[in-house]
């Protein structure tokens, strides 16, 4: 069924104005004048804000060319600060994903077990780690490594960040795996039973391989969450990732705090948009795929799986107004 927020496909309306939704009519002369008025008003408000920001920045000498130039002309700022920091961010995120995935799969499968004790045990673990902030886990891991192991203080932040991320994300991924397995058509299990497969075989040869494809988009978009959470380690544990590079950078390049933050934010946005685009490309491909069952755990579903509590019914398919 078509929803109000979604663009009409086909028909004259869509041909005229691609962005038209059913929430409002195709603008006539009066509506067009009114829209123009709103555009002008909004533009004025935006301009006022932008002017206020620029005036504020200029008053604090943050717009001087010397504060922005190094990012474009000086290779050293990239070699010394940004690229190693970016590498640390990516390494921590990748490690966390690689370690959390098998753990999450194990927990997710355990939650689907036929034995009540296994189910309850895995459920408790998953609910516990989803209910507490990842920063608490990182702080705990950091102190625990300091107290109980002899990992050197230089590498300890990386260990702590990755441990915190793994504990939290394994429990989120457990829910993703569970959703991926549950999303498969029931006929798959029936067919496996019919040819005499045991429970373990059904899981290992039939359900898991197919659910991995189904949940790929969700996995990639969870990677965005992981990338963002690495910044916690930079702010609280002294992990040398992108956010942590702001202070030394602005100290060495003439207190260009605003410029540094802008560059770091842009790097994060570019990295994450690349991941999101990849996730939605995967999603489209999976939906079209002829050989797959068509089951898919969408990128949006991850947001809802990340919170503790009883699993909500799957969210309605992605919001549609003008999604590219």
């Amino acid at each position, binding site marked *: 069924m078509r*929803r*109000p927020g979604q663009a009409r496909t086909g028909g004259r309306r869509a041909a005229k104005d691609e962005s038209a939704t059913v929430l409002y009519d195709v603008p006539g002369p009066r509506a067009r004048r009114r829209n123009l008025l709103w555009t002008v008003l909004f533009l004025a408000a935006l301009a006022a804000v932008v002017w206020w920001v620029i005036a504020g920045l200029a008053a*604090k000498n943050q717009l001087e060319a010397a504060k922005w130039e190094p990012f474009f002309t000086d290779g050293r700022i990239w070699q010394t600060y940004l690229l190693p920091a970016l590498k640390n961010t990516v390494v921590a995120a990748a490690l966390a994903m690689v370690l959390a995935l098998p753990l999450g799969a194990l927990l997710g499968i355990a939650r689907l077990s036929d034995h009540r004790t296994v189910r309850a045990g895995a459920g408790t673990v998953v609910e516990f780690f989803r209910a507490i902030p990842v920063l608490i886990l990182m*702080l705990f891991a950091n102190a625990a490594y300091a107290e109980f192991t002899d990992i050197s203080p230089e590498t300890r932040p990386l260990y702590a960040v990755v441990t915190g991320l793994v504990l939290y994300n394994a429990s989120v991924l457990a829910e993703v795996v569970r959703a991926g397995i549950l999303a498969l058509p029931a006929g798959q299990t029936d067919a496996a039973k019919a040819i005499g497969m045991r429970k373990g075989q059904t899981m290992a040869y039939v359900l898991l391989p197919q659910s991995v494809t189904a949940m790929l988009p969700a996995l990639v978009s969870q990677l965005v969450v992981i990338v963002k959470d690495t910044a916690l380690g930079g*702010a609280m544990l002294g992990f040398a990732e992108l956010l942590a590079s702001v202070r030394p950078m602005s100290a060495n390049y003439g207190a260009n705090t605003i410029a540094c933050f802008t560059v770091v934010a842009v790097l994060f946005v570019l990295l994450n948009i690349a991941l999101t685009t990849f996730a939605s490309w995967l999603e489209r491909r999976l939906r079209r795929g002829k050989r797959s069952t068509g089951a898919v755990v969408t990128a949006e579903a991850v947001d809802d799986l990340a919170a503790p509590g009883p699993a909500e019914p799957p969210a309605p398919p992605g919001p549609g107004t003008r999604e590219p």
Partner: protein
Amino acid sequence: MFDFLEGYDLLGAFWVTVQLTFWSALGSLVWGTLLAAMRVGPVPLMRGFGTAYVTVVRNIPLTVIIVFTSLGLFQTLGISMGADRFTTINFRLAVLGLTAYTSAFVCEALRSGINTVPLGQVEAARAIGLSFPQILRIIVLPQAFRSVVGPLTNVLIALTKNTTVAAAIGVAEAALLMREMIENEAQLILVSAIFAFGFICLTLPTGLLLGRLARKVAVKR
């Protein structure tokens, strides 16, 4: 066993966490609703602004936003949010950062709620001559809100957990106190367990209560 708790204001720290959550939730509900209205509205410029805002903000780590409010907004640009004491300034900056970040998620949740309102209702509303703001206010948003209580609950729980990031700019909430206690006290496991328990007390009941509410108010279709 719990002697070491003396001298620490545990409840006070969690109270700050609750306050951070409350004010940020309020702020992001308002700003998120406005963003959602812009994103589905008839003015192309506003739609573009809403889309750009959500795309950019969702992809920046919250930690970067929060640290920016302190290092960038306050220390560099001198924006103090009308407060003169450091604790108040940092608290308000944290609320500002959390609101700016969370509204993007509120906006997306609401937009998916708007998509659940049946087409015929909006067409009927247009047929009797309601304008876009009227359709949104009278027909679409009331139903959209009812169907997104569940997703919004998840946003609220994520927000509760995200308030710990305010520790990065020195707001005296639970995570900051935990770091202090870990440094000063020997009982690492016990201290961590107390804070974990505190957050479970905040997040699990929220999920259960609002989850029940979500099922109760959801529009049956």
